[in-house]
Protein backbone atom coordinates (compact mmCIF):
# COMPACT_ATOMS: atom_id res chain seq x y z
CA UNK A 1 0.00 0.00 0.00
CA UNK A 2 1.38 3.34 -1.00
CA UNK A 3 1.38 6.08 1.58
CA UNK A 4 -0.34 8.92 -0.21
CA UNK A 5 1.38 11.60 1.80
CA UNK A 6 4.87 10.22 1.31
CA UNK A 7 4.53 9.95 -2.44
CA UNK A 8 3.09 13.42 -2.76
CA UNK A 9 6.50 15.04 -2.82
CA UNK A 10 8.04 12.39 -5.03
CA UNK A 11 5.46 12.84 -7.74
CA UNK A 12 4.92 16.56 -7.71
CA UNK A 13 6.88 16.59 -10.92
CA UNK A 14 4.59 14.07 -12.49
CA UNK A 15 1.62 16.19 -11.49
CA UNK A 16 2.90 19.24 -13.25
CA UNK A 17 3.87 17.11 -16.24
CA UNK A 18 0.35 15.75 -16.51
CA UNK A 19 -1.14 19.23 -16.25
CA UNK A 20 1.26 20.81 -18.70
CA UNK A 21 -0.68 20.16 -21.91
CA UNK A 22 -3.64 22.01 -20.43
CA UNK A 23 -1.65 25.00 -19.34
CA UNK A 24 -0.51 25.60 -22.89
CA UNK A 25 -3.96 25.54 -24.45
CA UNK A 26 -6.02 28.58 -25.27
CA UNK A 27 -8.06 29.71 -22.28
CA UNK A 28 -11.10 30.79 -24.26
CA UNK A 29 -13.47 27.89 -24.88
CA UNK A 30 -14.79 27.18 -28.32
CA UNK A 31 -18.34 26.21 -29.11
CA UNK A 32 -19.05 22.48 -28.96
CA UNK A 33 -19.38 20.59 -32.23
CA UNK A 34 -22.96 20.56 -33.44
CA UNK A 35 -24.93 17.46 -32.63
CA UNK A 36 -22.29 15.49 -30.77
CA UNK A 37 -20.52 15.00 -27.48
CA UNK A 38 -17.06 16.27 -26.76
CA UNK A 39 -15.29 13.01 -26.48
CA UNK A 40 -11.58 13.72 -26.28
CA UNK A 41 -9.31 15.98 -24.35
CA UNK A 42 -8.15 17.58 -27.58
CA UNK A 43 -11.71 18.72 -28.25
CA UNK A 44 -12.06 20.40 -24.88
CA UNK A 45 -11.06 23.93 -24.06
CA UNK A 46 -8.31 24.23 -21.52
CA UNK A 47 -9.36 25.07 -17.98
CA UNK A 48 -8.78 28.75 -17.27
CA UNK A 49 -6.16 27.67 -14.76
CA UNK A 50 -4.34 24.35 -14.74
CA UNK A 51 -5.06 22.27 -11.62
CA UNK A 52 -2.27 22.47 -9.13
CA UNK A 53 -1.24 21.01 -5.83
CA UNK A 54 -2.68 23.38 -3.29
CA UNK A 55 -0.91 23.04 0.07
CA UNK A 56 -2.40 20.14 1.96
CA UNK A 57 -3.89 18.48 -1.10
CA UNK A 58 -2.79 15.26 -2.70
CA UNK A 59 -2.14 14.12 -6.22
CA UNK A 60 0.26 11.21 -5.78
CA UNK A 61 0.18 10.19 -9.43
CA UNK A 62 -0.55 13.57 -10.94
CA UNK A 63 -3.49 14.50 -13.10
CA UNK A 64 -4.97 13.53 -16.39
CA UNK A 65 -6.27 16.89 -17.47
CA UNK A 66 -9.23 17.79 -15.27
CA UNK A 67 -9.19 14.50 -13.38
CA UNK A 68 -6.74 13.51 -10.70
CA UNK A 69 -5.31 10.09 -11.45
CA UNK A 70 -6.25 7.33 -9.04
CA UNK A 71 -3.54 6.97 -6.40
CA UNK A 72 -2.26 3.52 -7.39
CA UNK A 73 -1.67 1.96 -10.78
CA UNK A 74 -3.25 -1.33 -9.70
CA UNK A 75 -6.49 0.37 -8.64
CA UNK A 76 -6.53 2.40 -11.84
CA UNK A 77 -6.03 -0.76 -13.89
CA UNK A 78 -8.79 -2.66 -12.11
CA UNK A 79 -11.20 0.23 -12.64
CA UNK A 80 -10.21 0.40 -16.31
CA UNK A 81 -10.90 -3.30 -16.68
CA UNK A 82 -14.28 -3.08 -14.96
CA UNK A 83 -15.17 -0.26 -17.33
CA UNK A 84 -14.33 -2.50 -20.27
CA UNK A 85 -16.51 -5.31 -18.89
CA UNK A 86 -19.31 -2.78 -18.46
CA UNK A 87 -18.84 -1.80 -22.10
CA UNK A 88 -19.01 -5.48 -23.07
CA UNK A 89 -22.20 -5.98 -21.01
CA UNK A 90 -23.80 -2.96 -22.68
CA UNK A 91 -22.52 -3.51 -26.20
CA UNK A 92 -22.69 -7.29 -26.56
CA UNK A 93 -24.55 -8.98 -23.70
CA UNK A 94 -27.48 -6.58 -23.77
CA UNK A 95 -28.21 -7.14 -27.48
CA UNK A 96 -27.88 -10.89 -26.87
CA UNK A 97 -30.45 -10.61 -24.09
CA UNK A 98 -32.63 -8.52 -26.41
CA UNK A 99 -32.48 -11.29 -29.01
CA UNK A 100 -33.56 -13.81 -26.39
CA UNK A 101 -36.43 -11.54 -25.44
CA UNK A 102 -37.50 -11.42 -29.08
CA UNK A 103 -37.28 -15.21 -29.31
CA UNK A 104 -39.38 -15.64 -26.17
CA UNK A 105 -42.00 -13.29 -27.57
CA UNK A 106 -41.95 -15.10 -30.92
CA UNK A 107 -42.52 -18.43 -29.17
CA UNK A 108 -45.70 -16.92 -27.77
CA UNK A 109 -46.78 -15.45 -31.10
CA UNK A 110 -46.05 -11.87 -29.98
CA UNK A 111 -44.34 -9.41 -32.33
CA UNK A 112 -41.04 -8.08 -30.91
CA UNK A 113 -42.12 -4.43 -31.05
CA UNK A 114 -45.34 -5.06 -29.12
CA UNK A 115 -45.68 -2.72 -26.18
CA UNK A 116 -46.75 -4.25 -22.90
CA UNK A 117 -47.10 -3.43 -19.19
CA UNK A 118 -43.95 -3.66 -17.10
CA UNK A 119 -45.16 -6.46 -14.84
CA UNK A 120 -46.04 -8.59 -17.85
CA UNK A 121 -42.60 -8.02 -19.37
CA UNK A 122 -40.83 -8.87 -16.12
CA UNK A 123 -42.76 -12.10 -15.70
CA UNK A 124 -41.95 -13.10 -19.27
CA UNK A 125 -38.22 -12.39 -19.19
CA UNK A 126 -36.80 -12.44 -15.70
CA UNK A 127 -36.07 -16.17 -15.59
CA UNK A 128 -34.33 -16.40 -18.96
CA UNK A 129 -30.67 -17.42 -18.47
CA UNK A 130 -29.30 -14.93 -21.02
CA UNK A 131 -31.29 -12.02 -19.66
CA UNK A 132 -30.20 -12.87 -16.14
CA UNK A 133 -26.56 -13.42 -17.10
CA UNK A 134 -26.51 -9.90 -18.51
CA UNK A 135 -28.06 -8.50 -15.35
CA UNK A 136 -25.67 -10.50 -13.19
CA UNK A 137 -22.59 -9.37 -15.11
CA UNK A 138 -23.69 -5.75 -14.89
CA UNK A 139 -24.42 -6.07 -11.19
CA UNK A 140 -21.03 -7.68 -10.52
CA UNK A 141 -19.26 -4.83 -12.31
CA UNK A 142 -21.24 -2.24 -10.38
CA UNK A 143 -20.56 -3.88 -7.03
CA UNK A 144 -16.87 -4.46 -7.74
CA UNK A 145 -16.39 -0.86 -8.88
CA UNK A 146 -17.86 0.55 -5.68
CA UNK A 147 -16.00 -2.01 -3.56
CA UNK A 148 -12.65 -1.03 -5.07
CA UNK A 149 -13.22 2.70 -4.58
CA UNK A 150 -14.68 2.34 -1.09
CA UNK A 151 -11.74 0.24 0.09
CA UNK A 152 -9.24 2.76 -1.29
CA UNK A 153 -10.99 5.65 0.47
CA UNK A 154 -11.52 3.89 3.77
CA UNK A 155 -8.04 2.37 3.90
CA UNK A 156 -6.67 5.91 3.51
CA UNK A 157 -9.44 7.72 5.35
CA UNK A 158 -7.20 9.98 7.36
CA UNK A 159 -5.31 11.20 4.29
CA UNK A 160 -8.49 11.92 2.31
CA UNK A 161 -10.17 13.63 5.27
CA UNK A 162 -7.08 15.71 5.99
CA UNK A 163 -6.98 16.79 2.36
CA UNK A 164 -10.56 18.07 2.52
CA UNK A 165 -10.05 19.65 5.94
CA UNK A 166 -7.05 21.56 4.58
CA UNK A 167 -9.20 23.45 2.07
CA UNK A 168 -12.63 23.56 3.75
CA UNK A 169 -12.04 27.19 4.76
CA UNK A 170 -9.82 28.10 1.85
CA UNK A 171 -10.71 29.94 -1.36
CA UNK A 172 -11.20 30.68 -4.12
CA UNK A 173 -14.89 30.15 -3.54
CA UNK A 174 -16.59 29.05 -0.36
CA UNK A 175 -17.89 25.87 1.23
CA UNK A 176 -20.96 25.84 3.45
CA UNK A 177 -21.77 22.63 5.32
CA UNK A 178 -24.97 22.18 7.30
CA UNK A 179 -24.55 19.04 9.41
CA UNK A 180 -28.00 19.39 10.98
CA UNK A 181 -29.80 19.70 7.65
CA UNK A 182 -33.14 17.89 7.73
CA UNK A 183 -33.08 15.73 4.64
CA UNK A 184 -36.18 14.40 2.90
CA UNK A 185 -36.13 10.60 2.79
CA UNK A 186 -35.97 10.56 -1.01
CA UNK A 187 -32.48 12.05 -0.87
CA UNK A 188 -31.05 9.37 1.41
CA UNK A 189 -31.13 6.33 -0.89
CA UNK A 190 -28.06 4.51 -2.19
CA UNK A 191 -28.69 5.61 -5.77
CA UNK A 192 -26.73 3.44 -8.26
CA UNK A 193 -26.07 1.26 -5.17
CA UNK A 194 -23.26 3.67 -4.30
CA UNK A 195 -22.22 2.82 -0.73
CA UNK A 196 -23.90 5.33 1.57
CA UNK A 197 -25.48 7.16 -1.34
CA UNK A 198 -24.78 10.88 -1.66
CA UNK A 199 -25.19 11.69 2.02
CA UNK A 200 -24.03 8.70 4.05
CA UNK A 201 -20.33 8.26 3.33
CA UNK A 202 -17.61 10.85 3.88
CA UNK A 203 -16.04 9.85 0.58
CA UNK A 204 -19.25 10.01 -1.46
CA UNK A 205 -17.69 12.64 -3.73
CA UNK A 206 -14.53 10.64 -4.37
CA UNK A 207 -16.51 7.50 -5.13
CA UNK A 208 -19.05 9.31 -7.29
CA UNK A 209 -16.39 11.05 -9.38
CA UNK A 210 -14.50 7.88 -10.27
CA UNK A 211 -17.48 5.53 -10.19
CA UNK A 212 -19.57 7.53 -12.62
CA UNK A 213 -16.54 7.89 -14.87
CA UNK A 214 -17.05 4.16 -15.38
CA UNK A 215 -20.77 4.65 -16.07
CA UNK A 216 -19.81 6.85 -19.00
CA UNK A 217 -17.42 4.11 -20.19
CA UNK A 218 -14.59 6.57 -20.55
CA UNK A 219 -16.43 9.31 -22.42
CA UNK A 220 -16.57 11.78 -19.55
CA UNK A 221 -13.19 11.65 -17.88
CA UNK A 222 -12.63 15.29 -18.81
CA UNK A 223 -16.19 16.26 -17.81
CA UNK A 224 -16.94 16.26 -21.53
CA UNK A 225 -20.69 15.98 -21.08
CA UNK A 226 -20.75 18.69 -18.45
CA UNK A 227 -18.65 20.98 -20.60
CA UNK A 228 -20.93 20.32 -23.56
CA UNK A 229 -23.97 21.04 -21.41
CA UNK A 230 -22.53 24.21 -19.91
CA UNK A 231 -21.67 25.62 -23.31
CA UNK A 232 -25.01 24.50 -24.76
CA UNK A 233 -27.27 26.09 -22.15
CA UNK A 234 -29.22 29.13 -23.34
CA UNK A 235 -28.73 32.61 -21.90
CA UNK A 236 -31.61 35.00 -21.11
CA UNK A 237 -32.85 37.11 -24.00
CA UNK A 238 -31.26 40.23 -22.50
CA UNK A 239 -27.92 38.45 -22.39
CA UNK A 240 -27.40 39.17 -18.71
CA UNK A 241 -25.71 36.41 -16.70
CA UNK A 242 -24.59 37.65 -13.33
CA UNK A 243 -25.64 34.77 -11.08
CA UNK A 244 -25.92 31.06 -11.84
CA UNK A 245 -27.16 28.20 -9.65
CA UNK A 246 -26.56 24.49 -10.24
CA UNK A 247 -29.07 22.44 -8.24
CA UNK A 248 -28.02 18.96 -7.07
CA UNK A 249 -24.50 19.84 -8.11
CA UNK A 250 -22.98 16.57 -6.90
CA UNK A 251 -19.22 16.86 -7.29
CA UNK A 252 -19.63 20.22 -9.03
CA UNK A 253 -18.86 19.15 -12.59
CA UNK A 254 -21.54 21.33 -14.23
CA UNK A 255 -20.94 24.23 -11.85
CA UNK A 256 -17.22 24.19 -12.72
CA UNK A 257 -17.97 23.96 -16.44
CA UNK A 258 -20.36 26.93 -16.12
CA UNK A 259 -17.67 28.93 -14.35
CA UNK A 260 -15.36 28.17 -17.25
CA UNK A 261 -17.96 29.50 -19.68
CA UNK A 262 -19.00 32.49 -17.55
CA UNK A 263 -15.87 33.42 -15.57
CA UNK A 264 -17.35 36.76 -14.45
CA UNK A 265 -20.56 35.25 -13.08
CA UNK A 266 -21.21 34.35 -9.44
CA UNK A 267 -21.68 30.59 -9.59
CA UNK A 268 -23.31 28.51 -6.87
CA UNK A 269 -23.62 24.75 -6.60
CA UNK A 270 -25.86 23.23 -3.93
CA UNK A 271 -26.46 19.62 -2.97
CA UNK A 272 -28.05 17.75 -0.09
CA UNK A 273 -24.88 15.69 0.32
CA UNK A 274 -22.30 17.32 2.57
CA UNK A 275 -19.51 14.98 1.42
CA UNK A 276 -20.40 15.77 -2.20
CA UNK A 277 -20.09 19.54 -1.96
CA UNK A 278 -17.02 19.16 0.24
CA UNK A 279 -15.29 17.20 -2.51
CA UNK A 280 -16.60 19.64 -5.14
CA UNK A 281 -15.04 22.53 -3.23
CA UNK A 282 -11.72 20.68 -3.00
CA UNK A 283 -11.65 20.15 -6.75
CA UNK A 284 -12.67 23.76 -7.48
CA UNK A 285 -9.91 25.07 -5.24
CA UNK A 286 -7.37 22.91 -7.05
CA UNK A 287 -8.58 24.33 -10.36
CA UNK A 288 -8.58 27.88 -9.04
CA UNK A 289 -12.30 28.30 -9.73
CA UNK A 290 -14.23 30.79 -7.61
CA UNK A 291 -17.45 28.86 -6.95
CA UNK A 292 -19.64 28.75 -3.87
CA UNK A 293 -20.69 25.26 -2.84
CA UNK A 294 -23.31 24.77 -0.15
CA UNK A 295 -25.08 21.85 1.46
CA UNK A 296 -28.68 22.91 0.93
CA UNK A 297 -31.91 21.46 -0.40
CA UNK A 298 -32.98 22.18 -3.96
CA UNK A 299 -36.52 22.73 -2.68
CA UNK A 300 -35.33 25.15 0.03
CA UNK A 301 -32.36 26.99 -1.43
CA UNK A 302 -32.53 29.94 0.99
CA UNK A 303 -31.72 32.40 -1.80
CA UNK A 304 -33.73 35.64 -2.26
CA UNK A 305 -36.58 35.90 -4.73
CA UNK A 306 -35.65 36.64 -8.35
CA UNK A 307 -31.97 36.11 -7.60
CA UNK A 308 -30.53 34.04 -10.46
CA UNK A 309 -30.24 34.61 -14.19
CA UNK A 310 -29.81 30.89 -14.84
CA UNK A 311 -30.90 27.96 -12.68
CA UNK A 312 -29.94 24.53 -13.93
CA UNK A 313 -29.25 20.96 -12.92
CA UNK A 314 -27.69 17.88 -14.50
CA UNK A 315 -29.52 14.54 -14.19
CA UNK A 316 -30.91 15.47 -10.76
CA UNK A 317 -34.67 15.38 -11.28
CA UNK A 318 -34.91 11.68 -12.12
CA UNK A 319 -33.50 11.01 -8.63
CA UNK A 320 -36.26 13.07 -6.96
CA UNK A 321 -39.67 12.02 -5.62
CA UNK A 322 -42.82 13.47 -7.25
CA UNK A 323 -43.45 15.76 -4.27
CA UNK A 324 -39.80 16.81 -4.22
CA UNK A 325 -39.98 17.58 -7.93
CA UNK A 326 -43.02 19.82 -7.48
CA UNK A 327 -41.32 21.66 -4.63
CA UNK A 328 -38.08 22.08 -6.56
CA UNK A 329 -39.79 23.45 -9.66
CA UNK A 330 -41.70 25.98 -7.55
CA UNK A 331 -38.52 26.96 -5.71
CA UNK A 332 -36.72 27.37 -9.03
CA UNK A 333 -39.46 29.72 -10.17
CA UNK A 334 -39.16 31.77 -6.99
CA UNK A 335 -35.41 32.31 -7.27
CA UNK A 336 -35.19 32.80 -11.04
CA UNK A 337 -35.40 36.46 -11.98
CA UNK A 338 -37.96 37.68 -14.51
CA UNK A 339 -36.53 36.92 -17.93
CA UNK A 340 -34.20 34.36 -16.40
CA UNK A 341 -33.97 30.71 -17.42
CA UNK A 342 -34.58 27.45 -15.61
CA UNK A 343 -33.12 24.55 -17.61
CA UNK A 344 -32.94 21.22 -15.79
CA UNK A 345 -30.98 18.75 -17.93
CA UNK A 346 -32.24 15.20 -17.63
CA UNK A 347 -33.42 12.17 -19.56
CA UNK A 348 -35.61 12.99 -22.52
CA UNK A 349 -39.30 12.76 -21.64
CA UNK A 350 -40.43 13.32 -25.22
CA UNK A 351 -38.87 10.15 -26.54
CA UNK A 352 -38.80 7.56 -23.76
CA UNK A 353 -37.54 4.05 -24.31
CA UNK A 354 -40.14 2.01 -26.19
CA UNK A 355 -42.39 0.02 -23.89
CA UNK A 356 -41.50 -3.24 -25.58
CA UNK A 357 -40.90 -6.27 -23.39
CA UNK A 358 -37.12 -5.84 -23.22
CA UNK A 359 -37.39 -2.05 -22.94
CA UNK A 360 -39.74 -2.45 -20.00
CA UNK A 361 -37.51 -5.06 -18.42
CA UNK A 362 -34.44 -2.82 -18.71
CA UNK A 363 -36.33 0.09 -17.23
CA UNK A 364 -37.35 -2.14 -14.34
CA UNK A 365 -33.89 -3.52 -13.59
CA UNK A 366 -32.44 -0.04 -13.65
CA UNK A 367 -35.06 0.95 -11.08
CA UNK A 368 -34.80 -2.23 -9.03
CA UNK A 369 -31.19 -3.31 -9.22
CA UNK A 370 -29.41 -0.03 -9.92
CA UNK A 371 -31.58 1.42 -7.15
CA UNK A 372 -32.84 4.21 -9.39
CA UNK A 373 -35.65 4.69 -6.90
CA UNK A 374 -37.53 7.50 -8.65
CA UNK A 375 -36.74 7.07 -12.34
CA UNK A 376 -39.99 5.38 -13.32
CA UNK A 377 -42.05 8.08 -11.61
CA UNK A 378 -39.87 10.76 -13.20
CA UNK A 379 -41.09 9.56 -16.58
CA UNK A 380 -44.76 9.68 -15.60
CA UNK A 381 -44.75 12.68 -13.30
CA UNK A 382 -45.78 15.25 -15.92
CA UNK A 383 -42.70 17.43 -15.40
CA UNK A 384 -43.60 19.67 -18.32
CA UNK A 385 -46.98 20.47 -16.74
CA UNK A 386 -45.33 21.15 -13.38
CA UNK A 387 -42.94 23.60 -15.01
CA UNK A 388 -45.78 25.41 -16.79
CA UNK A 389 -47.97 25.40 -13.68
CA UNK A 390 -45.19 27.02 -11.70
CA UNK A 391 -45.41 29.97 -14.08
CA UNK A 392 -42.61 29.35 -16.57
CA UNK A 393 -42.93 29.65 -20.33
CA UNK A 394 -41.64 26.26 -21.48
CA UNK A 395 -39.89 25.69 -24.77
CA UNK A 396 -39.31 21.97 -25.43
CA UNK A 397 -37.85 22.49 -28.89
CA UNK A 398 -34.50 24.03 -28.08
CA UNK A 399 -31.81 24.79 -27.76
CA UNK A 400 -30.45 21.33 -27.06
CA UNK A 401 -28.05 21.86 -24.17
CA UNK A 402 -26.85 18.27 -24.29
CA UNK A 403 -27.46 15.95 -27.25
CA UNK A 404 -29.60 12.88 -26.48
CA UNK A 405 -30.99 14.48 -23.34
CA UNK A 406 -34.26 16.31 -22.87
CA UNK A 407 -34.96 19.93 -23.72
CA UNK A 408 -36.51 21.82 -20.79
CA UNK A 409 -35.90 25.47 -21.62
CA UNK A 410 -38.14 27.38 -19.18
CA UNK A 411 -38.21 31.16 -19.02
CA UNK A 412 -39.72 33.15 -16.17
CA UNK A 413 -41.94 35.78 -17.82
CA UNK A 414 -40.46 39.26 -17.59
Amino acid at each position, binding site marked *: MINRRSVMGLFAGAASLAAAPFASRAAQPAAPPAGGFWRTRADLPAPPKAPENVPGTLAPRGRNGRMERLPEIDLESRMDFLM*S*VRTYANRT*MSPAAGRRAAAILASKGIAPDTEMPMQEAIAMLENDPMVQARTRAWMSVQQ*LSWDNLKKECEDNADAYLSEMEAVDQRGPGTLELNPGLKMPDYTRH*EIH*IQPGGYV*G*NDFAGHMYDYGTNGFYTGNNEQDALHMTAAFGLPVPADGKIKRILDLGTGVGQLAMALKERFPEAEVWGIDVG*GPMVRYAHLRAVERGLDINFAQRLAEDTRFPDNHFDLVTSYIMLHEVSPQGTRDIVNEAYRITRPGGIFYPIDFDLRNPFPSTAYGQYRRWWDHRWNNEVWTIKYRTNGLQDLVRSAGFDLNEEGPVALPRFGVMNATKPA
Partner: protein
Amino acid sequence: MSNKVEAERSKAAPFIPADTGSAIFLDNPHLDNLMTVVIALGAEIWADRQRMKVVERLLETEGKATTEMIEAYVPTDAEKKAWETERMAMVERVYSVLSRDTSNARPFGEERQF
Protein backbone atom coordinates in the same frame (compact mmCIF):
# COMPACT_ATOMS: atom_id res chain seq x y z
CA MET B 1 -23.13 6.19 8.00
CA SER B 2 -21.39 3.64 5.87
CA ASN B 3 -17.83 4.59 6.74
CA LYS B 4 -15.90 4.40 9.98
CA VAL B 5 -14.88 8.02 10.43
CA GLU B 6 -14.81 9.51 13.90
CA ALA B 7 -17.92 11.59 14.50
CA GLU B 8 -16.17 14.90 14.96
CA ARG B 9 -14.55 14.65 11.51
CA SER B 10 -17.51 13.19 9.66
CA LYS B 11 -19.89 15.16 7.44
CA ALA B 12 -21.96 12.09 6.57
CA ALA B 13 -25.60 11.58 7.51
CA PRO B 14 -27.87 8.55 7.97
CA PHE B 15 -28.86 6.93 4.69
CA ILE B 16 -31.35 4.35 3.45
CA PRO B 17 -29.46 1.18 2.40
CA ALA B 18 -30.23 -0.50 -0.90
CA ASP B 19 -31.41 -4.09 -0.59
CA THR B 20 -29.50 -5.33 -3.62
CA GLY B 21 -26.31 -6.50 -1.94
CA SER B 22 -27.29 -10.17 -1.87
CA ALA B 23 -29.41 -10.18 -5.02
CA ILE B 24 -29.40 -13.54 -6.76
CA PHE B 25 -30.12 -13.80 -10.48
CA LEU B 26 -28.91 -17.25 -11.44
CA ASP B 27 -30.09 -20.70 -10.37
CA ASN B 28 -27.61 -21.08 -7.56
CA PRO B 29 -26.23 -18.28 -5.36
CA HIS B 30 -22.74 -19.65 -5.92
CA LEU B 31 -23.13 -19.10 -9.66
CA ASP B 32 -23.82 -15.44 -8.91
CA ASN B 33 -20.76 -15.38 -6.68
CA LEU B 34 -18.67 -17.03 -9.38
CA MET B 35 -19.63 -14.40 -11.95
CA THR B 36 -18.29 -11.77 -9.58
CA VAL B 37 -15.18 -13.87 -8.96
CA VAL B 38 -14.32 -14.30 -12.64
CA ILE B 39 -14.79 -10.59 -13.35
CA ALA B 40 -12.69 -9.67 -10.30
CA LEU B 41 -10.00 -12.14 -11.41
CA GLY B 42 -10.00 -10.58 -14.86
CA ALA B 43 -9.38 -7.19 -13.25
CA GLU B 44 -6.48 -8.61 -11.22
CA ILE B 45 -4.92 -10.20 -14.32
CA TRP B 46 -5.26 -6.96 -16.27
CA ALA B 47 -3.65 -5.02 -13.43
CA ASP B 48 -0.62 -7.32 -13.65
CA ARG B 49 -0.54 -7.04 -17.44
CA GLN B 50 -0.80 -3.26 -17.24
CA ARG B 51 2.03 -3.09 -14.74
CA MET B 52 4.14 -5.32 -16.99
CA LYS B 53 3.58 -3.00 -19.93
CA VAL B 54 4.74 -0.03 -17.90
CA VAL B 55 7.79 -1.95 -16.69
CA GLU B 56 8.69 -2.95 -20.24
CA ARG B 57 8.30 0.62 -21.43
CA LEU B 58 10.45 1.99 -18.61
CA LEU B 59 13.15 -0.59 -19.21
CA GLU B 60 13.20 0.35 -22.89
CA THR B 61 13.39 4.07 -22.25
CA GLU B 62 15.06 4.43 -18.84
CA GLY B 63 16.92 1.16 -18.37
CA LYS B 64 15.31 0.60 -14.97
CA ALA B 65 11.87 0.44 -13.40
CA THR B 66 11.44 1.28 -9.74
CA THR B 67 8.10 1.22 -7.89
CA GLU B 68 8.05 4.99 -7.87
CA MET B 69 8.72 5.18 -11.61
CA ILE B 70 5.96 2.66 -12.33
CA GLU B 71 3.39 4.57 -10.29
CA ALA B 72 4.41 7.90 -11.81
CA TYR B 73 4.46 6.75 -15.42
CA VAL B 74 2.17 8.84 -17.64
CA PRO B 75 1.21 7.02 -20.83
CA THR B 76 1.00 8.84 -24.11
CA ASP B 77 -2.42 9.21 -25.72
CA ALA B 78 -1.37 6.57 -28.25
CA GLU B 79 -0.42 4.15 -25.47
CA LYS B 80 -3.70 4.78 -23.67
CA LYS B 81 -5.62 4.03 -26.84
CA ALA B 82 -3.60 0.88 -27.53
CA TRP B 83 -4.08 -0.35 -23.96
CA GLU B 84 -7.82 0.27 -24.18
CA THR B 85 -8.03 -1.67 -27.42
CA GLU B 86 -6.06 -4.57 -25.96
CA ARG B 87 -8.12 -4.54 -22.77
CA MET B 88 -11.37 -4.67 -24.70
CA ALA B 89 -10.02 -7.49 -26.85
CA MET B 90 -9.12 -9.41 -23.70
CA VAL B 91 -12.61 -8.89 -22.28
CA GLU B 92 -14.22 -10.11 -25.48
CA ARG B 93 -11.85 -13.07 -25.70
CA VAL B 94 -12.44 -14.17 -22.12
CA TYR B 95 -16.12 -13.41 -21.65
CA SER B 96 -17.61 -13.92 -25.13
CA VAL B 97 -19.10 -17.23 -24.04
CA LEU B 98 -21.46 -15.28 -21.79
CA SER B 99 -23.24 -13.97 -24.89
CA ARG B 100 -23.64 -17.27 -26.72
CA ASP B 101 -27.15 -18.29 -27.67
CA THR B 102 -28.37 -20.56 -24.89
CA SER B 103 -31.87 -21.06 -26.21
CA ASN B 104 -31.15 -24.67 -27.18
CA ALA B 105 -28.87 -25.45 -24.24
CA ARG B 106 -29.74 -28.56 -22.30
CA PRO B 107 -27.86 -31.02 -20.10
CA PHE B 108 -25.52 -33.25 -22.09
CA GLY B 109 -27.03 -36.62 -22.82
CA GLU B 110 -30.59 -35.56 -22.15
CA GLU B 111 -31.78 -36.83 -25.52
CA ARG B 112 -29.80 -40.09 -25.47
CA GLN B 113 -31.73 -43.25 -24.90
CA PHE B 114 -29.82 -46.28 -23.68
